[in-house]
């Protein structure tokens, strides 16, 4: 059970901010989320969406454990 977090427009699109989900890898988790929600699939596939695993940005795939925290981060803008 990885902890999954959505930020910004992603949580608006999906209608949730945090869930516990079973997945062996980031790729598998993204596929799982995309299969159950076509709008979220489209939003996750947009340019500029980054993924953080345990609060570190990861590029490409990575394995998950039961205690992993995976965050999907759309383009950032502060100030």
């Amino acid at each position, binding site marked *: 059970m990885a902890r999954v977090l959505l930020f910004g427009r992603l949580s608006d699109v999906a209608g949730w901010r945090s869930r516990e989900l079973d997945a062996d890898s980031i790729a598998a988790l993204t596929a799982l989320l995309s299969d159950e929600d076509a709008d979220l699939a489209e939003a996750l596939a947009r340019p500029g969406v980054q993924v953080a695993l345990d609060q570190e940005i990861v590029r490409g795939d990575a394995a998950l454990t039961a205690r992993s925290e995976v965050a999907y981060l759309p383009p950032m*803008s502060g100030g």
Partner: protein
Amino acid sequence: MISLTDQPFEPGALLTAFSQGRDETGAIATFTGLARAERGATTTLELEAYPGFTEAAIDKIAQEAKARFALDDFQIVHRVGAIAPGEPIVFVATAATHRRAAFEACDFLMDYLKSRAPFWKKETGPDGSRWIEPRDQDHADIARWESTKP
């Protein structure tokens, strides 16, 4: 020092505290970003952060700025949550021996905060809500620092 707060803050009070006891500093630059009403088109701005991750990401860039611009000190305060027009969103202060370093570091930190720091920003007005992404100008602003990197 970096802090996130969901309460309104007063930039003047921060500058007062930041400038105390600095008899070797010489130069303090600040920037305050205020929520704009956009002539009534925006009634609320909502800022979301990723607690822990956001502070760590800002701290990393602030340490880079400190080394790159020979800063004595810096302070960054950023609002999260719902913000009304006219309220401060962000305050950045930099202290250095000479003014060029203070200005450049403050400018650099703001460019970073606008386009790279982990915040997500939603504007709400009479016509509904929209998520704000960095403008072309914001991307151009931060690109300036890449090309002049020592």
